[in-house]
């Protein structure tokens, strides 16, 4: 019995359930949220170390054997993603204590956050394509409400775009799953990977592969499908946009990684990788150029999310063990650095009263700690040694050179430079130049005065960034093993199907 595999889903679900009756007692909800996030972190560490030591863990719900029942699978890739989710969940629950107001709490902020984590962890742990769809829906429904929390007109405008595009992408996902079931007669990922090579209707499989790429591409915000992201991520409360920025797009990237290496292994996934080799540089370049034009702090950072997704796609498209390891490390590094930058944007807003870079300034002299933390996160994002981003980029670029994709590698290096330029812009505008004095220096709308609670999560994440950078060896070891395990589809299949069939 491997209940440990189900715990990352069950724990937040039970927490949300217990929270619901305490609508008028936010103190209880806050305590439960914090306690649950701490427990979740412990569970994630336990899961990761069990999988690291003992190989792939599976859970067949109800004891129904693999291709028929509901299967949960935790391999190293899933376990690492669950651990990253737990870290972001923990920091966000701390950050929200200092930034979410009573009204937002009354509208079920805390239970919704837990349900969002249920969906994300479910998507990482499922071993079945239809269940992946279900977990996506759980995640989306919670995110719809979280995005609109507070209900200002600007937020509703952002939510309408977000909801529309995501409903459309869900419909595409469902059609793809339907066609695939019609063709293959199964939706269990391990079973599919065994059966797909024998299927004769290759055209239908190509259609399914492209439909899946589109639907995951919408979630991951890849090149032609990214427009909804900068249009909506700058509107909700900072705690919400930080967790969205850190985790939601990466669920899409994870799905691309999982489906096109584990499920599709033949010519279809090779075709997808050829497409991705074009999409990856376009995503990097368009994202970073979009960011260059922005002066709203959170909009600027949102465009950088898109740009960074390009590197992960590039890593997936190369498919060498080094590239996959680099891609996985890139995802984790990006989750941490991006979330940290969004938290910082919230503190900037709290201290200076605005997100618009033109209106603020002088934070270097008034908030030196904030300036230092920003520098760590921003330089990590741009890939300056010895921070985590340097190693992540080094691995991806080295894999690119080794596989002979010189053009895309050159684009990746150029985009790195532009990212640094963009971060320098934030530094110059928000921290270095004198305060233009356009806005009054405090903003009552954001934050409730517990500033230490805003700083603590940023300090934690910056600690992780520096740790990844300085002790890279064990982190590399873990990523390399996860990549090896992901590319070894045979052992995944054996773990899930028990060597039968």
């Amino acid at each position, binding site marked *: *019995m491997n*209940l440990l595999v*189900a715990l990352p889903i*069950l724990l937040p*679900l*039970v927490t949300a*359930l217990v929270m*619901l*009756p305490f609508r008028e007692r936010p103190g209880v909800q806050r305590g439960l949220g914090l306690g649950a996030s701490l427990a979740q972190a412990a569970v994630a560490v336990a899961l990761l170390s069990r999988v690291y030591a003992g190989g792939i863990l599976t*859970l*067949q*719900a*109800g*004891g129904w054997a693999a291709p028929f029942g509901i299967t949960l699978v935790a391999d190293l890739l899933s376990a690492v993603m669950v651990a990253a989710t737990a870290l972001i969940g923990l920091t966000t629950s701390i950050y929200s204590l200092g930034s979410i107001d009573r009204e937002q709490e009354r*509208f079920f902020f805390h239970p919704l956050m837990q349900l969002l984590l249920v969906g994300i962890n479910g998507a990482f742990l499922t071993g079945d394509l239809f269940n992946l769809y279900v977990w996506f829906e759980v995640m989306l429904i919670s995110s719809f409400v979280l995005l609109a929390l507070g209900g200002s007109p600007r937020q509703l405008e952002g939510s309408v775009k977000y909801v529309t595009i995501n409903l459309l992408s869900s419909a595409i996902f469902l059609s793809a799953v339907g066609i695939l079931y019609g063709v293959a007669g199964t939706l269990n990922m391990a079973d599919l990977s065994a059966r797909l090579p024998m299927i004769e209707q290759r055209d239908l499989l190509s259609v399914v592969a492209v439909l899946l790429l589109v639907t995951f591409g919408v979630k991951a915000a890849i090149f032609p499908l990214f427009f909804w992201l900068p249009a909506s991520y700058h509107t909700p409360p900072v705690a919400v946009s930080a967790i969205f920025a850190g985790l939601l797009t990466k669920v899409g990237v994870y799905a691309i990684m999982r489906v096109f290496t584990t499920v599709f292994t033949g010519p279809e996934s090779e075709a997808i990788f050829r497409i991705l080799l074009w999409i990856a540089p376009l995503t990097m370049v368009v994202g970073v150029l979009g960011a260059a034009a922005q002066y709203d702090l959170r909009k600027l950072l949102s465009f950088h999310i898109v740009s960074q997704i390009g590197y992960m796609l590039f890593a997936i498209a190369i498919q060498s063990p080094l590239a996959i390891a680099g891609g996985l490390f890139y995802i984790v590094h990006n989750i941490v650095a991006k979330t940290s930058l969004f938290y910082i944007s919230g503190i900037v807003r709290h201290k200076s009263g605005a997100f618009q870079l033109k209106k603020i300034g002088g934070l270097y002299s008034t908030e030196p700690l904030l300036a230092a933390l920003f520098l760590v996160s921003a330089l990590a994002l741009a890939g300056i040694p010895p921070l985590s981003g340097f190693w992540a980029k080094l691995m991806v670029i080295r894999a690119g050179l080794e596989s002979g994709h010189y053009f895309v590698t050159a684009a990746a290096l150029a985009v790195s430079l532009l990212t640094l330029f963009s971060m320098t812009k934030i530094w110059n505008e928000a921290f270095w130049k004198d305060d233009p004095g356009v806005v009054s220096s405090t903003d009552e709308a954001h934050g409730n005065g517990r500033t230490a609670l805003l700083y603590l999560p940023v300090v934690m994440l910056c600690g992780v960034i520096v740790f990844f950078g300085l002790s890279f060896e064990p982190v590399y070891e873990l990523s390399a093993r996860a990549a090896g395990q992901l590319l070894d589809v045979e052992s995944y299949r054996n773990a899930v199907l028990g060597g039968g069939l």
Partner: protein
Amino acid sequence: MHSLILSTSSRYLLVLLQLFSVFLLLRGHNEPGGGFAGGLVAAAAYALYFIANGVEEARRVFRFEPLTVVVAGLGVALASTLPSILGGMEFMQSVWGNTGIPVIGKVGTPLLFDVGVYLLVLGITLKIVFSLAGEDEP
């Protein structure tokens, strides 16, 4: 608009439909029906009562806060997984006990899970119906 015929018949239909919903719930394991269908029928009974007699009256007859019923349903469904966890079996594995009660027959965790679904569907449907019925309270 108040219709005497509708409001009188809805009072009898409320009871009949609820009995029918429990019937659906109990036969659901092997035959068409189950917690979802049963919950919807029960919610439809109160929705009809609300159309005939107004939302205040329907809320009074329902007695519970719909959200509480949702929580109870989720709780019951989750509790149905406890025997499998405590018994050291695969997660969510069915545990059956033979009661020998006629009509109901074997009772086990799948029935408990179905009861949870029934309450959840009933609660969430009524929450939506009552909210749409024109109350601003979120």
